[in-house]
């Protein structure tokens, strides 16, 4: 009997731990999607527009394709509410994402449209800067309401 109880408690503990892990996995997955966008928008487009890395047409074109792909995943990836933030993260999602789901999702198509509008139209640092500013402004429409500083 004692052994049975120990096994049962062990199973329960494992189940609780894996549920918590799953929630953390969801939060990490959501964070990764946003980081992927930051990599191309800030790591490539912003840095190149400021002259910190040399202008590279192939990298610009790739950034737009990857951004479009990643922004297109936001609605799906942010479907479930992990109810927690990534451990030790600087930024996280506001609970409002899931409280105002329709409004949150309504912010995505304008970002996709802005990215699409600049495809094939960036040829130099000046046009890259214009594109970066417009895309970043459209991202901020969402960040103002749905992105939280955590520490």
């Amino acid at each position, binding site marked *: 009997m004692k052994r049975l109880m120990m096994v049962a408690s062990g199973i329960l503990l494992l189940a609780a731990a894996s549920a918590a892990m799953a929630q953390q996995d969801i939060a990490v997955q959501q964070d990764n999607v946003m980081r992927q966008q930051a990599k191309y928008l800030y790591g490539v487009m912003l840095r190149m527009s400021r002259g910190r890395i040399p202008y590279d047409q192939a990298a610009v074109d790739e950034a737009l394709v990857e951004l479009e792909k990643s922004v297109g995943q936001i609605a799906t990836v942010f479907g479930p509410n992990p109810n927690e933030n990534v451990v030790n993260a600087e930024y996280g999602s*506001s609970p409002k994402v899931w409280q105002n789901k329709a409004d949150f999702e309504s912010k995505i198509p304008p970002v996709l449209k802005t990215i699409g509008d600049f495809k094939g139209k960036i040829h130099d640092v000046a046009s890259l800067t214009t594109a970066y500013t417009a895309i970043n402004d459209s991202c901020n429409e969402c960040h*103002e309401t749905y992105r*939280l500083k955590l520490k």
Partner: protein
Amino acid sequence: MGSMKTARLLAALLVVGVSGFAAFWWLSRANPISASELPTRTPDLANGRYVFDAAGCASCHAVPGQPDRFRLGGGLSISTAFGTFHAPNISPDATDGIGKWTEADFVNAVMRGISPAGEHYFPAFPYASYQHAEINDIRDLYAFIRTLAPVTGRVRAHEVRFPFNIRRSVGIWKQLFMDGKPFTPDASHSARWNRGAYLVNSLGHCAECHSPRNALGGIIERQRFAGGPDPEGEGWVPNITQKGLADWSEDDIADFLESGITPSNDSAGGSMVRVIRNTSQLRPDDRTAMADYLKSLPPIEGPTRVRKSN
């Protein structure tokens, strides 16, 4: 004999009560600047527009949910521990905005937190920082705002909990938390540092969000700039002393004030997004000056964060 004692006691209580009320009334009075203290001058509209950005007026007073930063019909709701404030219409509309205000009315509102009717404004309006502004900056701001389009529509009244809704008591708050002193340059620092100190401490009103507050809503001075819970309820406002920004270079801070992007490729969230819309309009040398000043703030431990899940 007993009734004599009671009468004396009542008389004493009455004297204490009346004196106390008189002291409260005197201490809580509004102390406006008179129009005669504002000598005639030609306003600098370009500077007024610049001050508009440096002071972050659009952050609260631009109509939310539309892109025009100069459409000052107000309406943003700010939830705090004391109640919900609704940013008023400060467009030049004569009925719903500030179209009928004199220059002295405007200066008193911004620098003293006093309405044209002589009432105290609630300190959700950051006049405790604006009090340190150069008066000519605020006069230029008045002239600039008068050039903008009037917006109709009066914003709803603030919903503030008792006893914080007693406006007269804000006069006592001002005695406790405002020094009434103009910004004074520190000769031991460079002109750039002083310009940064001016922008951060007066127009930029950075400490208003980046400092913890006490039960009366006043900034806890020993922890000024050390961050704390977001006054709007969600998230955390970071420590911007060297305790929080030691890893950031001066360029990192100046870049962030322009782009909203941190050195680790995170982007600003919440109300800081609105702040960046203003600071991105400033001259690069002013952003660098603010960074210079912020880098000089000694490390101060902020309040302890209570971890909350969604």
